[in-house]
């Protein structure tokens, strides 16, 4: 159901962009060559990496068991837990909304809040296929700098969130 809705949305967007392009290019025929050249270059670049990226996503979807994350991301505290959370999140395993139920299950199992936040953040922005596409379009230095900074700040953020949430829970516990 959701997938069909998403596909309709994508096709609507494609239709909208195409109509805008057709209208603009019939008003300004002089720009046609420039638009076609630019679009074509980007299309070729996308098509030359997307199949490879999709193959990697497919392989991981089939070969990596679904409960792997829950199995390995328990109460493991400290550096090891954070490191595992990043690795688990970075595996190419689908969109973010799949990660929330996993995170919720982990929370109920007693995993550390910081690990869960790191896991969610890694899932959303340190995915392996994503980094490959970033490498292709923005270059090695940009990719490496953003990856390193993201890892550092995500860890800091996760520890901060853990402290805040625990403090709140503590207050609420005293009042209630």
């Amino acid at each position, binding site marked *: 159901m959701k997938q069909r809705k998403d596909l309709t949305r994508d096709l609507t967007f494609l239709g909208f962009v*195409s109509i805008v392009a057709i209208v603009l290019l019939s008003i300004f025929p002089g720009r046609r060559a420039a638009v076609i050249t630019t679009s074509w270059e980007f299309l070729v670049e996308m098509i030359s990496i997307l199949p490879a990226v999709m193959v990697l996503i*497919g392989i991981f979807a089939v*070969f990596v068991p679904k409960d792997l994350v829950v199995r390995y991301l328990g109460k493991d505290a400290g550096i090891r837990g954070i490191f595992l959370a990043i690795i688990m999140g970075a595996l190419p395993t689908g969109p973010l909304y799949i990660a929330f*139920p996993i995170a919720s299950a982990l929370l109920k199992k007693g995993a550390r809040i910081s690990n869960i936040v790191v896991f969610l953040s890694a899932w959303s922005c340190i995915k392996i296929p*994503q980094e490959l596409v970033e490498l292709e379009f923005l270059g090695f230095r*940009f990719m490496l700098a953003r990856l390193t900074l993201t890892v550092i700040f995500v860890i800091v953020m996760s520890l901060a969130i853990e402290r805040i949430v625990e403090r709140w829970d503590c207050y609420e516990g005293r009042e209630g």
Partner: protein
Amino acid sequence: MNVATVIINVFALISLIIAFVKDGTKTKQAIMIALKSFVRILPMVVAIVIFIGLLLSFVPKYVISRVIGEQAGFKGILIVAILGAILHIPSLISFPLASSLLEGGASITAVAVFITTLTMIGVVTLPIEIKELGKKMALLRNGMSFIIAIVIGLIMGWIL
């Protein structure tokens, strides 16, 4: 063909061969999933590619750089951060878009902030996140991600 393209394809090919040696049936399943995902993402790829063509050919460089370029200041960064948080573009497609913005005169900071909020923050998925993890964690994570995205972008602009 650039180096990155070759690396990505070789990496995928080696993974595919290893997978096939380990389990042929499972690998066929994996290829089917890959094929489906590829077909599924195509409309968005074509749409964004046309959008990039129009953007770079119709919007003059000085306009892009005035809004989100080096001289745009903090307001420009805030605009892209909010846009990134609201928009629901698949991350794989956000990179060509980001690279076209860079080509069109946007600053490194703006582009890095855009990608980071786009991937880390989901206003669209926020209700699911609240449902699964509770208001406290969901709001804290999204709110703090917004701030660290801007910090990451500023540092990126400074070091690159």
